[in-house]
């Protein structure tokens, strides 16, 4: 199991487009991938867009990503990359 804390950097948060990218990425991996708000209020399966949208993670929200499976390290690395560049929506 790999666990990492990630911050939502883009202003609009995990809205439709960002969530779509996240879910597409998550589905590339075999491992299970969970996202939880660090305050523990909500959790989501990162492979379900409906779940991810319901996290209502606006800009600045901190999320814990937990991966479990044989490609868990790669999955977490891919997810971290997405969060890091704000789902491609940060001002360049």
């Amino acid at each position, binding site marked *: 199991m790999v666990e990492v804390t990630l911050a939502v950097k883009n202003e609009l948060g995990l*809205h*439709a487009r960002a969530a779509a990218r996240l879910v597409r990425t998550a589905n590339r991996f075999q491992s299970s991938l969970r996202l939880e708000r660090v305050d523990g209020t909500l959790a989501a399966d990162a492979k379900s867009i409906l779940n991810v949208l319901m996290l209502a993670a606006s800009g600045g929200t901190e999320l814990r990503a937990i991966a479990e499976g044989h490609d868990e390290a790669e999955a977490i690395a891919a997810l971290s990359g997405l969060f890091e560049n704000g789902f491609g929506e*940060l001002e360049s």
Partner: protein
Amino acid sequence: MIADASSKPAERRWQGLSVSEGLVLGRVLRIHRGTKHVYPARIEVGDVAREIKRFREAVDQAKTQLLAIKDRAANLMGQDHAYIFDAHLLMLEDRKLSEEIENFITRKRANAEWAVKVLGDRLLSVYAEIKDDYLRERGSDIEDVIHRVLEALSGERPAYLDLVEEAVIVSEDLLPSAVAELDLGHARAIVTDAGGWTSHTAIIARGLGIPAMVGLEDLCQHARTGDGIVVDSYNSEVVLHPSNATIAQCLAEIQRRAGARPAAPASGTGIALTSDGLQVRLRANVELPAEFAGVSKYGALGIGLYRSEFLLAQPGVMLSEEKQYRAYSEVAELAGENGAVVRLFDLGGDKGGDSVADSERNPALGLRAIRFCLLNETVLRTQVRAIIRAAAKGQLDIVLPMVADVSDVMRAREIITQERAKLEKENEDCGPVRVGAMIEVPSAVFTAEKIARVVDFFELGTNDLVQYVLAVDRSNDKVADWFRSLHPAVLESISRTLKAARDAAIPAIVCGEMASTPAYAVVLVGLGATDLSMTPSSIPRVTRVLNGIDSRDAVAIATECLACATADEVEEIVRERFLARWPQLFPPRTLPAKKTQQRVDHMQDRER
């Protein structure tokens, strides 16, 4: 081609506002966001597998449709507008939802429709609770997806896939987001119950060169997909269930028009020449990629107005400098040697910048256009950098939307100068960029001669000018009678602004929708305009009319109009003088209708 006569309902006529000219005979394609009625049915245990199979097939069918829609949206409106359909696809592929639905079918022995409806509604209620406004609105996307699956289950194909050839789109109102879903390239006409001259429907219909009418009030309640319909926007009339006589008449008229139409210049010069030798330049207004082809097709003299905010698919999400740079480079290349004027993001107000305007009580008077840009400096600086860089690829100019006075211009110019200096320091390729002001609010009209000293050119946005000078919300049907482009106060504002530009020896381009109506274009020339920008498809028509007039007559008529007290008086003068002077150019129906008479009729109706 229209339904057989045996059980045909009686012919019915509606009057509306013509926003794009033409005459077509076709079939109704009713677009609505109506709720689908679904009923529960208890199924046999043995049929559970069959229901699950039906559900999966419906999902597959919906997916196939969405993939096609996504491609169409990308072609018609640009890649960035297609993203939302990707989210829709993921919702369909969402294992959590499909598992829940399949479990529900098994446990409750429910029919697939009922399971989709119940779980869909449950999901929607959860979304309705989300505090974040933007995310809560995603509920409408879920609704859309559920609707699509239910439609697939009922065996109905979305009508627009079948009826493309002769479809007349009939809708309460077309939301910008709904536009992507329609194969507008194949639509014959668009008619809506709501909307005005400057509504999205109107602008897009003119861009595509298909007839459109709005303000038909209750047509939607009566029209069903497949009904025969005639849209005659030359006469501001829609006929539902046309009788055989009406159809014959309509076909004859279509043929007559096809024969009578002078050969449109395949590629005009973009310059009209009045009989007394005055040159009037005709440029293109564009926003969506779908309209780009029209710029050369109709021979526009470059792009007079590029509405950049249409690049933004979503309120609040800015495009990176690189993406903007690519988009503006494309516009610069498209415009050719005559260049393009890029209007800075006109966000806020009614322009779809929801996240900005949400909390304002009076968005049209609120944080929009240049005010929004000045308060969101990062946005402004990024856009300015992208434009200056793209200007190295072809001539690009910047126009500042909705400036109130000189101070707005000075603040924006300072930022533009700073960004240019930075780019030069970074050794980026930069092109020369002139800076102009949109004159569209009264304060700018009254200080036009001062503004003229600090800008390189003027643009007159007549849509907003009419709205602000007359204090009439252009999207509010109830006050549509007060939205009068030919109001003497509007004409005075235009005349004043054009004079200020002439005195300062700077160009002034009139770029509102007014310019695309031939009669109005003549009035504008009479007021001193020599540079018009309009929907590309209107250029041949306007050129033809301007080529046929003597500009001195236009000046004389415009001077008479300026002396009027009311819009009714102006319209009366335009109607009478134009008919007397240029009967061959202006058949009576192309001129403003007698408003006064209509009003009297209305009042009599009320008294009855």
